[in-house]
């Protein structure tokens, strides 16, 4: 078990190192950040001074090691545009993205799980077929297009909700959050729904598949033979059986939802990390891009690692169950 653990952590570290090199090389290839940073009319002398100051005249490998050294001390450098430490910048935007992603996951589960259970409980019903069509739409409609329609319908045509921005926030434990006030709600509901769409489709499918499987099982038949009410059959036996895969996927998908927020945040002008990275790509704010990408890689490597280790822990129990 310990050997397995060490091996996986070692692999994860290697992946992070390799990815950091790739990210550094890739971002370096984008273009000369000096052009972005200074007035095109500046003299060659100012240019040279700046290039030397940022170390852009050094060999690439040297720049990389300086960068890694700084990162290990928690210093990702300064944003060329905002002139503040990159890490501070990203962390100041993180609560908005987290709140949006959590709201999206919440909407997806509150709507998706009951619909999926129904579609699995009555697979032949017309309503179930409509639900499955909805899930296909959730998968295949491009997020940005749905976001656009949402803005057009609820903001432009009906004037029910604001078209973008975050609106008023209230601090809880020093973290600015939207969901505290009704006005904050009116700002978060559209983008959160937009971001929820993919997970909604996914959860409908998962819950349906799990319910279908449980409904045809002997233990549901046995529960019915005991005279359990249908609500109890579904609420106890079926729900408990689909809970495990759903919780797993929930954890896995949270990372993707955070990353996917890029699109939704752009449409709704939501001041999160996603909007930050798009803006940074547009103006070639290199340190922000590098830091964001490395954090994302780190996030996914950790998620994968946790899943791997969890399976490793769960494995003997599963084996024991099969052997019994």
């Amino acid at each position, binding site marked *: 078990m310990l050997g397995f653990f060490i091996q996986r952590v070692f692999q994860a570290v290697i992946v992070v190192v390799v990815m950091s090199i790739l990210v550094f090389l890739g971002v370096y290839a984008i273009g000369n950040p000096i052009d972005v940073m200074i007035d095109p009319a500046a003299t060659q002398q100012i240019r040279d001074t700046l290039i030397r100051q940022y170390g852009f005249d050094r060999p690439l490998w040297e720049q990389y090691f300086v960068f890694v050294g700084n990162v290990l001390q928690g210093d990702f450098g300064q944003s060329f545009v905002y002139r503040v430490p990159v890490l501070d910048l990203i962390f100041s935007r993180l609560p908005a993205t987290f709140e949006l992603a959590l709201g999206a996951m919440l909407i997806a589960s509150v709507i998706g799980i009951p619909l999926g259970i129904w579609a699995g409980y009555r697979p032949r019903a017309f309503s179930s077929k409509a639900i499955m069509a909805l899930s296909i739409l959730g998968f295949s409609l491009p997020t940005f297009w749905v976001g656009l329609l949402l803005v057009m319908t609820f903001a432009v045509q009906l004037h029910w909700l604001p078209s973008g921005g975050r609106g008023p926030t209230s601090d809880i434990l020093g973290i600015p959050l939207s969901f505290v006030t009704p006005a904050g709600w009116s700002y978060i509901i559209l983008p959160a729904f937009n971001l929820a769409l993919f997970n909604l489709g996914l959860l409908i499918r998962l819950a349906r598949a799990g319910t279908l499987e449980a409904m045809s099982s002997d233990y549901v038949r046995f*529960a019915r*033979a*005991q*005279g359990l009410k249908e609500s*109890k059959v579904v609420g106890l*036996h079926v729900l408990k059986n689909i809970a*495990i895969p759903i919780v797993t996927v929930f954890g896995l998908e949270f990372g993707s939802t955070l990353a996917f927020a890029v699109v939704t945040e752009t449409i709704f002008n939501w001041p999160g990390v996603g909007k930050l990275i798009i803006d940074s790509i547009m103006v070639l704010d290199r340190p922000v891009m590098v830091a964001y990408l490395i954090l994302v890689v780190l996030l996914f490597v950790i998620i994968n690692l946790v899943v791997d280790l969890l399976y490793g822990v769960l494995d003997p129990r599963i084996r024991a169950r099969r052997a*019994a």
Partner: protein
Amino acid sequence: MSDVVLSVQELQTHFFTRNGVLKAVDGVSFSVRKGRILGLVGESGSGKSVTGYSILRLVDAPGKIVGGRIVLNGTDLAALDGEAMRRMRGAVVSMIFQDPMMTLNPVLRIGTQMVAAIKAHDRVSTALARERARDALALVGIPAPAERLDAYPHHLSGGMRQRVAIAIALLHQPAVIIADEPTTALDVSIQSQILAEVRRLADQMGTAFVWVTHDLAVVSSLADDVAVMYAGRIVESGATEAVLAHPRHPYTAGLMASVPSQAERGARLAQIGGSTPSLGALPEGCAFRPRCPRATEICRMMPPLAPIGDTMVRCHHPIGEARP
């Protein structure tokens, strides 16, 4: 006979598939008295299990009960509405299934499943329900029943699980228990323990059993009466000793000849030639005709179920009568 608890009359259960109507159960009648065990014998596909499910009205689509009466303690189950039928299940008639691995929900504790079964019919506190559950486990001979309540099914052996299933079926002391091959998946020694337990419960508590099985050895050691099914119909029925001592229907005789214990050591086991006909393509008249050594032209007409001695036989040329 006033102590008849279950009387099935002309039961018809058909499956409406894309390839036509399959008459899985086609006019089956039998009755069971208090504390007695009826063995319902047949090969797979003979309709014996569907008969069992039909009694609890747990036939899955596309199967449907299309005719007949199922009179349980004076109530025709076939005429009840859904909620009234639910109240009967588990309370007046209950069921145990073939595979003890599958009939208990793997992710719920034994106690949780038993409490749910008790609360399906009685409004009692959870504490009281747990006490009753514990007593029920003790009744079927499970050691340390209080601790078993907190166990998951995979902690128990196959035989123990089947005892738990029987305990659950007995919770409300139903008049009849339908048992669908409940010992087939168990070791022979465990099987005989469970059979002895069932015999004791039937005698002590007066519970009647319909024991669905393909195993004549089980029937001979357990059942008071036996009904042999072939292709959706009963072909022979009567007291177990009478039928097994003097099988009248060629199919019953063939079944018995293929049981190893009946054959001489070293001799080749007899087989019934041919194979079970598919329900979609039954021959006209007696369904056993193509495989029957005694078949003649008259067998193209369906023989009636008629009394011969102490047994009822559906055959134009029963054994013991000279061939024409």
